[in-house]
C-alpha cells in the first residue's frame, strides 16, 4: 500500500496563531452564570459590552512567550556569573554609587512581587481571554523581575552594607512606606482601577522615568548586573505598556459612561506615581557619581514630550484631558530632586543607605543642570552642611518628620510658585485632622478619605509604640538595620572598604 506524500502543513500567520491559542481556547461557562464566575468586574461602575474587542498588538502565544523569556534569562544569568567571577564590583565608578541600588532593592523588588500577585488575580478574574492571557504573561514577568533583581543585587550583599533584610525593611521603614503604600493602594482597588493605576499610569506614563535613566545610569557607572537585569526587565515593560494602553483604550471605547471614571483614576494615579518618583529624582541627580541626564531633562523627554505631546492628544479623541495637577509637576521639575534629596540627607542616620554633600564637580553639574534654582536655593544648604562636616560633625535631623497622609513622604515640598515656603494642606474627616503635602495629595485624600485614614504612617506608629521602642536605636533594630547601614558615606564602612581595595590594587599594580 502506498501512503500519499503529505503536504507540509501551511504555517499559520501570527494573527491566526494568536487567535487560535487565546480567543479560540476560551469557553462560556454553563454550570454557573458569568457574573458568578467573574464577580469583580462590575462593582467599580465600568461597563463592558464585548470583551472580545480587547486586542493584544503583541499577538503573543505561550510558545513564543516561553521561547523569548528563556532567552532573556539565559543572557542575564551569563552576565551575572561573569560579573561575580571577575569581581566586577571593583570596577564601579565609585563605592557610593551602590546607595542608589540599595534604595532600588529595598523599594522596588517587593513591589514587583506585589504586581505579580495582582496580575495573577487579573489573569483569573477578567472576563475576556485576551486580557486574561496578557495579564498572565505580565504576572510571570513581574515574578521574574523580583527574582532577577534580588539575584543580581545579591552579589553586592557580599561586599557592601544595606543589601540585607530588604524584605523586612520594606514592610517597616519610613521611606519605604512610600512605595509600599502606593502599591497597597493599587492592589486594594478593583481590577479596572488597578489596570489604570499600574498598567496605564505607572507602566505607560511613568515607568520610563524610573527604568530608562536608572539603567542608563547603571551602564555609565560600571554596574553591569543592574544594567542587564534592567534591560531584561524593560524588554517586558514594553509589553506591559501595551497592556496598559490597551486597557485604557478598551474601557474608553466600550462605553461613554466609563470616561469620567477613568479620568478620575488617571488624575489620582498620575499624582500618586509622580510623588513616588520624587525618590527617583533624588537618586538621579544626587546618587549617581557619573550622571547621564538630570531629572528635569528626563521629565521633559519622557513625560512632557512623549506623553503630553504624543499620548494625550491621542486620548483627547475619547474626551480624556491631561491629568489634574500636571502643571504643578511641570513647575516642580526645577526643584523636586533637591527637596527630596535634602530630606534623605538629613534623615540618613535612620536609613539603610548613605548620603553625602555633593562634591565640587557634582555641584558644578547641578548648577549647569538647574541654573535657576540650585545656586540660589539649594547650594547654600549644602554649604552649611559642609561647614558642619568641616567642624567634625554631620547635620542629622533628630526629630521625627510629619508625613503626608497620602504619599507618606515627609512634608518637605513647597508651595506652588514659592520654593521657600513649605506647603501644608489639611482636611478634617470625622472630627480628626489629616495633613497633606500638596494640592494633589489633598485632592486624592478628599476623594476617598475612608481609605486614607487607614494609612500606616511610620512616624505615628513609632509614637504609638509599635516600632520596637522609644529610641532611635530601638527603632532601627526593629527595622532590621545594622549600625553601618546609614549615616554619611564619607568614612562609612563601605567608603573605607572601597578605599582600601583600591589602595591595594594601586600598590600591587
Amino acid at each position: 500500500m502506498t501512503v500519499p506524500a503529505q503536504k507540509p502543513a501551511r504555517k499559520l500567520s501570527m494573527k491566526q496563531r494568536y487567535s487560535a491559542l487565546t480567543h479560540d481556547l476560551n469557553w462560556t461557562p454553563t454550570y454557573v452564570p458569568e457574573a458568578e464566575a467573574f464577580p469583580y468586574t462590575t462593582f467599580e461602575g465600568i461597563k463592558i459590552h464585548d470583551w472580545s474587542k480587547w486586542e493584544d498588538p503583541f499577538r503573543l502565544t505561550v510558545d513564543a512567550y516561553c521561547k523569548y523569556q528563556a532567552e532573556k534569562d539565559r543572557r542575564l544569568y551569563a552576565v551575572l556569573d561573569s560579573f561575580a567571577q571577575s569581581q566586577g564590583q571593583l570596577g564601579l565608578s565609585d563605592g557610593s554609587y551602590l546607595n542608589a541600588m540599595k534604595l532600588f532593592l529595598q523599594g522596588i523588588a517587593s513591589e514587583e512581587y506585589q504586581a505579580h500577585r495582582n496580575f495573577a488575580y487579573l489573569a483569573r478574574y477578567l472576563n475576556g481571554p485576551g486580557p486574561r492571557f496578557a495579564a498572565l504573561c505580565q504576572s510571570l514577568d513581574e515574578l521574574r523581575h523580583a527574582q532577577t533583581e534580588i539575584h543580581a543585587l545579591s552579589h553586592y550583599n557580599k561586599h557592601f552594607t544595606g543589601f540585607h533584610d530588604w524584605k523586612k525593611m520594606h514592610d517597616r521603614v519610613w521611606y519605604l512606606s512610600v512605595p509600599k503604600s502606593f502599591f497597597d493602594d493599587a492592589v486594594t482597588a478593583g481590577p479596572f482601577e488597578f489596570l489604570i493605576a499600574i498598567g496605564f499610569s505607572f507602566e505607560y506614563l511613568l515607568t520610563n522615568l524610573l527604568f530608562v535613566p536608572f539603567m542608563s545610569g547603571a551602564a555609565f557607572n560600571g554596574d553591569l548586573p543592574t544594567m542587564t537585569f534592567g534591560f531584561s526587565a524593560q524588554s517586558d515593560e514594553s509589553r506591559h505598556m501595551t497592556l496598559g494602553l490597551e486597557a485604557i483604550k478598551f474601557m474608553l471605547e466600550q462605553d461613554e459612561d466609563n470616561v469620567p471614571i477613568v479620568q478620575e483614576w488617571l488624575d489620582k494615579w498620575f499624582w500618586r506615581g509622580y510623588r513616588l518618583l520624587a525618590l527617583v529624582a533624588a537618586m538621579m541627580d544626587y546618587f549617581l557619581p557619573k550622571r547621564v541626564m538630570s531629572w528635569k531633562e528626563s521629565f521633559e523627554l519622557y513625560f512632557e514630550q512623549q506623553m503630553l505631546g504624543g499620548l494625550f492628544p491621542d486620548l483627547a479623541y475619547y474626551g480624556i484631558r491631561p491629568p489634574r495637577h500636571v502643571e504643578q509637576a511641570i513647575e516642580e521639575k526645577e526643584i523636586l530632586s533637591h527637596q527630596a534629596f535634602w530630606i534623605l540627607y538629613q534623615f540618613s542616620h535612620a536609613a539603610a543607605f548613605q548620603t553625602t554633600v555633593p562634591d565640587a564637580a557634582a555641584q558644578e553639574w547641578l548648577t549647569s543642570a538647574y541654573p535657576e534654582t540650585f545656586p540660589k536655593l539649594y547650594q547654600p544648604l549644602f554649604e552649611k552642611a559642609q561647614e558642619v562636616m568641616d567642624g567634625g560633625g554631620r547635620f542629622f535631623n533628630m526629630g521625627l518628620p510629619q508625613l503626608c497622609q497620602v504619599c507618606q513622604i515627609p512634608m518637605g515640598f513647597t508651595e506652588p510658585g514659592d520654593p521657600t515656603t513649605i506647603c501644608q494642606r489639611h482636611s478634617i474627616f470625622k472630627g480628626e485632622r489629616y495633613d497633606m503635602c500638596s494640592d494633589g495629595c489633598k485632592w486624592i485624600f478628599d476623594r476617598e478619605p475612608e481609605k486614607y485614614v487607614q494609612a500606616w504612617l511610620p512616624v505615628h506608629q513609632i509614637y504609638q509604640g509599635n516600632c520596637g521602642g522609644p529610641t532611635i536605636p530601638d527603632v532601627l533594630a526593629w527595622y532590621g538595620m545594622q549600625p553601618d547601614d546609614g549615616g554619611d558615606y564619607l568614612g562609612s564602612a563601605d567608603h573605607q572598604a572601597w578605599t582600601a581595595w583600591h589602595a591595594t590594587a594601586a600598590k600591587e599594580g
Partner: protein
Amino acid sequence: MTTTADRPVGIDLQESEETRALVDAIEADNEDLTVLHMPGIVRLTKPGRLVINQASVEQRLGRPWETHELQLAIVSYFGHFAEWDDDQILIAWDH
C-alpha cells in the same frame, strides 16, 4: 496644533552588536528619523509613524529574523503598535 501624522512616535533599543542591524534597517526604511545615543541605549524617533520591516532586518543581519525578536532588543516605545505581523511592525498614533 499637531496632527496624528506629525506627532512624534519612537522606540528605545538596547545598543548592542545584534541590534545594530535592526537600527540600520529602521534608518533605511524611515525618512526623517532622529537617532539619539545614550549609554547603553539608542533612541529612534520620527514624526507620525515608524516602520520595521522583517525583510530589511534579515537582509542586514544575514539570517532569518522573526518580528517577535524585537522583544529582545526593545527598552521602551511611545505611540501604539498599530501593526505587529510576521513581516512588519508599525508604530503610530491612532487619533
